[in-house]
């Protein structure tokens, strides 16, 4: 999981930087107070380092465990019940570690002050992070809306589909009527879903099925399509057009040949996750930019589920394979 790994590394680096910074500031502050004497200074410095470490460890624990897991996670009562005993126990251990047994009240006060400051900084940082994520998401969404109208259902796809329908009607074949209904559903999905944040997964699937029906008409017998789906909860909501770009990409690149070819697609949903798998043959001499078509959807996935999706895109011999897993259906 590259996204998660990056997040963890960022967190460790940030924590270390703040910690080192605090130690340096404490030392500089103490330099001004302590006048002279080698041994005394050493003892003093050791004490300052210990104090800073213990205070900082508490702030990190409070922010990462108590605030993140309880307070911000809808467990406010647990937080209220736990924070007081936690600070009391920690203060007692703190003064014991510092060897200043009679300073319990002072230790509690200083811990409280630093906890308030630390939490304020942490919450402010979380807020800023969320805002910037939110703006990026809404900008992307706007981009997507425009794209959907412009390229997702691109005019060539539309005109080719109309041409195929026309070919049936010209021969008085009533299958043309079925195709007209399918095309109406396709267009309606694009027009209506682009306004929504989430849609039932079954809607996205039937959109994909309609799309495949038209690709079949366009490509004729040289194209074989294996489409498998298994939905445990068809009503479960997901953001629109999360799966479709991978299908479109498979057809775009998989069909660029005069030989017969196969495109494999499977969509599986269970209580824990959604999994999309596509496999198509790739023709290196013709298509050079297979992955560029997917950059937009990759960015969208990262913003929507930074830690709960995995996307594996690879070229294996003459095959191009996409394996996407979205965990917990977060929406």
């Amino acid at each position: 999981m590259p996204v998660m790994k990056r997040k963890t590394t960022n967190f460790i680096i940030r924590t270390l930087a703040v910690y080192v910074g605090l130690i340096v500031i404490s030392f500089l502050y103490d330099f001004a107070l302590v006048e002279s004497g080698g041994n005394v200074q050493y003892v003093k410095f050791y004490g300052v380092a210990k104090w800073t470490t213990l205070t900082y460890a508490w702030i990190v624990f409070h922010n990462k465990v108590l605030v993140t897991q309880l307070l911000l996670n809808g467990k406010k009562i647990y937080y209220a019940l736990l924070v007081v005993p936690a600070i009391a126990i920690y203060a007692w251990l703190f003064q014991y570690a510092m060897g200043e047994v009679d300073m319990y009240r002072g230790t509690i006060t200083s811990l409280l002050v630093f906890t308030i400051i630390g939490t304020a900084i942490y919450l402010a940082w979380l807020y800023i992070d969320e805002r910037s994520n939110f703006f990026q998401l809404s900008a992307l969404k706007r981009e997507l809306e425009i794209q959907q109208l412009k390229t997702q259902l691109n005019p060539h796809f539309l005109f080719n589909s109309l041409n195929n329908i026309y070919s049936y009607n010209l021969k008085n074949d009533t299958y043309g009527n079925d195709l007209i209904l399918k095309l109406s559903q396709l267009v309606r999905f694009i027009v209506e879903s682009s306004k929504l944040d989430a849609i039932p997964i079954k809607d996205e699937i039937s959109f994909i099925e309609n799309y495949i029906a038209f690709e079949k008409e366009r490509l004729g017998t040289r194209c074989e399509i294996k489409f498998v789906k298994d939905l445990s909860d068809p009503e479960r909501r997901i953001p629109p057009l999360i799966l479709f770009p991978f299908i479109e990409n498979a057809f775009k690149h998989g069909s660029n040949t005069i030989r017969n070819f196969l495109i494999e697609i499977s969509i599986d949903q269970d209580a824990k996750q959604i999994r999309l798998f596509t496999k198509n043959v790739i023709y290196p001499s013709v298509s050079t930019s297979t992955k560029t078509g997917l950059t937009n959807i990759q960015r969208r996935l990262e913003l929507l589920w930074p830690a709960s999706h995995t996307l594996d895109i690879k070229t294996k011999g003459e095959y191009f394979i996409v394996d996407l897993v979205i965990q917990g259906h977060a929406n």
Partner: protein
Amino acid sequence: MRIRVMIIDDEPRSHIILEDYIERIPELQLTGSFLNAISAHEHLKTNNVDLIFLDITMPEVDGFSFLRMLDHQPHIIIITAHSEFALESYEYNAVDYLKKPVSFERFTKAVNKVIQQVDHLPGRLTTGQIELKIDREIKTIPFNTIRYFQSLGNYIKVITEHQTYLSQATTQDIERLLPRELFIRIHKSYIVNRSKIEKVNEDTVTIGTIHLPIGKTFKKYVRDSVAK
């Protein structure tokens, strides 16, 4: 003379429409339908085609690449779902540019342009021979019997081994019809069969007992291309 046509389009359903339209126009005669440019190119090696209905976006070899592969380009009508290739199609002298889905009326209009152009020509080419309009009749003359063409104002004289024909055509019309590897223009009024040339002098080309003049502006061209 029916116009020999072929279809090149990677979408099978497009063939159904075009074949239906072609059948309705008696002047057209379908010689083949192809789903890609490569098999179409093979077909052209052994068949004579006057008009191609050509799609642009196709796998592996697109329509324009296909046109660049051709030595002798027949009339081209482009039929595509895209509108952005219209400008480029002019560079390939396409007769018309049709956007899918195409109505029969629009299709007919494009085909009529080709019919008019073909009617203006004095004849047409088939493998190893030329079909020429002579006295309102079509005469088939094999290339290997032709010695040379001589222009006489609005008429052109075809001098073969045993006969002479007169057809209403200009030197340009005939030159455009003939394959360059077999015939060469040596003068404003003369086109000769390369294989009949016995001798090339500074100012004349000798075929049997006849000496034909080389035009001033054609001297360098004749020297360079006959020497090969």
